[in-house]
């Protein structure tokens, strides 16, 4: 009878493991990761400075000039164009002549974000022959 009681008590103790501290810690970890993690993916844009030197810009016929003015309007060879269309336009130019160079002239006050978007659109059109310059006006 005594032995029976002893085993019964042991069984009861095993069943009632206190999991509250475990839940506390897991909750803390969860809150930490929810606050500290970010789902934004990092990326990079490479700019080859040595290639820029080789692009000669004297309004030659093999150069397409993209102007980004103070208001953020884009002109491709003096023709107003939307940023969404610039990729196709440049693609068409490059298809005709792959050696075409792209000169991006941006106004001094234009934010970098817009210049980077233009660089990317030109890259996606299939050329890396890009030269950056400040717009004098």
């Amino acid at each position: 009878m005594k032995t029976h009681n002893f085993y019964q008590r042991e069984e009861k103790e095993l069943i009632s493991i206190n999991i509250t501290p475990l839940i506390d810690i897991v909750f803390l970890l969860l809150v930490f990761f929810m606050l500290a993690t970010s789902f934004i993916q990092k990326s990079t844009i490479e700019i080859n400075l040595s290639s820029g030197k080789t692009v000669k810009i004297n309004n030659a016929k093999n150069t397409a000039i993209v102007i980004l003015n103070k208001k953020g309007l884009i002109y491709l060879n003096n023709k107003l164009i939307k940023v969404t269309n610039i990729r196709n336009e440049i693609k068409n130019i490059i298809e005709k002549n792959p050696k075409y160079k792209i000169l991006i002239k941006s106004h001094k006050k234009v934010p970098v974000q817009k210049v980077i978007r233009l660089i990317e659109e030109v890259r996606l059109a299939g050329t890396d022959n890009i030269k950056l310059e400040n717009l004098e006006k």
Partner: protein
Amino acid sequence: MALKKKIKQINLIPLINIIFLMLIFFMLAGTITTIDPHKINIPESIIKNDPLTPFLTIIVKKNGEVFIDSKNRKKELQKKDYLEILRARKPSEISLKIDSETPSEYFLKILKILENEKIKKVVIETNYLKE
């Protein structure tokens, strides 16, 4: 009495399961953000490239202040200061952390200086944004 017993026996296992799943999701899917002392809002890009671990990072704030790495975080660098650092370290490529609202004149000025210092490649840090 029966009600009291029922209340005492709330099953916590499904709750713990879900919390564990959420914890594993956040641990694996996200990346832990670091505090940026300069509060730079880097530009967004539509091209996905792998982030690099560059030798040297130049930080440009939206008012044109220039910092190199995080060591000089408190002190704004003048042109001669960062030229000195560039010439001492002679990096072949540089990472540029520039605020998206910085006027492009500062961006082009920095590129010109780096070109004159014979740096071949500049990698601009961006946040990837799907088109």
